[in-house]
């Protein structure tokens, strides 16, 4: 697989993972790009020990976690008001609400649920995060329960 192929295949998935973590389009794009910079640098060393997907998701989720270091910078980012409005109008309220709920979860839960919603197998999620498969299954169940409850409340409100 060439870098171009990887970029085309995984860009959307990685972008959504970063978006689940940050809930901010510009920052998600920055993180996704950073992921592909590392992928580009490391690709010659990739030796098929893991599937390429697991490999890329590990890099992306670690970059998201590393982002904690720059949190202060994030808060300072000021977006022009009209840009914010334009962004909000693109999103359907439900999608927006889902990403908002996910972004409020603890950091590692954000990664786990994002990978699950991306359709990654639970064995793979376990290997990306470094927990057992059972543990991952339990966590996913709990996170989904939380999300469902929040959506029920949301449904009552609107």
């Amino acid at each position, binding site marked *: 697989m060439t870098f171009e192929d990887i970029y085309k295949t995984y860009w959307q998935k990685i972008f959504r993972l970063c978006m689940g973590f940050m809930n901010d389009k510009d920052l998600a794009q920055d993180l996704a790009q950073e992921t592909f910079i590392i992928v580009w640098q490391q690709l010659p060393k990739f030796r098929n020990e893991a599937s390429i997907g697991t490999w890329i998701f590990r890099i992306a989720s670690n970059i998201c976690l590393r982002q904690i270091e720059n949190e202060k910078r994030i808060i300072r980012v000021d977006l022009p008001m009209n840009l914010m409005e334009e962004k909000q109008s*693109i999103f359907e309220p439900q999608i927006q609400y889902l990403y908002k709920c996910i972004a409020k979860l603890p950091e590692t839960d954000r990664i786990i649920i994002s990978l699950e*919603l991306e359709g990654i197998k639970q064995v793979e999620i376990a290997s990306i995060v*470094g927990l057992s498969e059972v543990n991952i299954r339990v966590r996913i169940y709990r996170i989904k329960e939380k999300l469902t409850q929040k959506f029920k409340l949301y449904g009552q409100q609107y």
Partner: protein
Amino acid sequence: MDNNIDFKDLWAKQTISPFNTNDLFSKLNRLKRTSLRKLIIANVLLIATCVFIMFIWYYYQPKLITTKIGIVVCILAMVIYLFAYNQFFPLLKTIDYKQSNIEYLQDLISIKTKQHFLQSTMLRLYFIMLSSGLCLYLYEYSLMMPTFWAILSYTVTLAWIGYNWFYIRPKIIKKQQIKIDDLISKFENVKRQLQDE
């Protein structure tokens, strides 16, 4: 709203920023340049200072052993600082992004702990060596001066050293430690999320 919400479907409906390869590669080049520039500036400055001190030794031919020891201690201080500083950069670069999240967090924590040590201990060592080297170096030249000037030059030098030791150094260390301590605790918090079961 339906009770069985299809989160996967909602998730996938998210609009995606289009990918742009040119943007990506320009970013890559910029990153490479800035980290390299920082490393070069620190090295060049300190090496230039060492060369300058060596030049003084060669040109003025000091007679006393104290002067020579002073010069060696000053140079050693800078070399040790440089060594520590240069060691830290590869540490950050070699961090393995391909590890699982839990291993990666552990790595981040240990790197930050090392940085903590390097910054406080190395800075202290650097200041002590540089100050004592300077005092020793000054001795030979103060012997050649009238007493008043000798006392004055030592007073000024010691005052300068004192200012650096008691004001500048704690300020630098405090600023760095607050930032690093905060980061370490954040990373540890995240790691704990994975361990609490």
